[in-house]
């Protein structure tokens, strides 16, 4: 048999190295192309929302700039007149919007912290926000779980939906923590 890297022994070395040291075979056996943040099954073109070669996800809607008539750009005229951003002033609706559109941003965590303060809880497995329905008693309650009717925030219909649910306390996120150096 061929005894250098150009034969089957060379291929065997790659296969064995894939288990012990994947870094050695990244060019041949390859990277996981589905883990690069691109939806390769998308029926739409990817380039209009391509976040760039280092981005782990496509552009968010607010990242895509668009040419508008200069008359629409009133920032210079009103920027000193706008109130400062204060999340405690905003309704739940706007906080959810911030949470769901500010992926990977301090604003996402800030919105989550504000929602937590308003008794919404994030279910880490279901990846939804839940809160208790006021005045609704539990069907069952133990130290580790409870069962009852809760409001879920439905992202698709953009409203609160009441549902009966078995709520495991360990699946709820604790209070979101903003890094002290991060400011909104």
């Amino acid at each position: 048999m061929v005894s250098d890297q150009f034969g089957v022994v060379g291929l065997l070395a790659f296969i064995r190295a894939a288990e012990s040291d994947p870094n050695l075979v990244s060019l041949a056996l390859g990277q996981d192309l589905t883990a690069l943040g691109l939806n390769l099954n998308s029926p739409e073109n990817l380039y209009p929302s391509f976040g760039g070669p280092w981005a782990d996800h496509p552009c968010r809607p607010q990242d895509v700039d668009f040419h508008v008539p200069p008359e629409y750009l009133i920032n210079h005229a009103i920027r000193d007149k706008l109130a400062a951003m204060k999340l405690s002033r905003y309704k739940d609706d706007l906080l959810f919007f911030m949470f769901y559109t500010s992926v990977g941003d301090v604003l996402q965590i800030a919105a989550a912290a504000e929602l937590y303060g308003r008794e919404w809880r994030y279910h880490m497995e279901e990846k939804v926000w839940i809160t208790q329905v006021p005045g609704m008693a539990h069907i069952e309650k133990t130290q580790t779980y409870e069962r009852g009717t809760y409001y879920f925030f439905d992202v698709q219909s953009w409203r609160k939906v009441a549902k009966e649910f078995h709520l495991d306390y360990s699946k709820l996120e604790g209070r979101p923590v903003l890094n002290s150096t991060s400011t909104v």
Partner: protein
Amino acid sequence: PLQKEHQQQFQLMEAAYYHMPHPSDTERIRTYLPRNPCNTPSYYIQA
């Protein structure tokens, strides 16, 4: 082994690696909601 020319290129590339472009470098200035990227929990939505 890398030729001398490529070794020099690598040194320059490595220095640039520690000053990677920031996403905001190629965007219009955001007056109200500047980008403030951070690591968010893996169980939050990622896209």
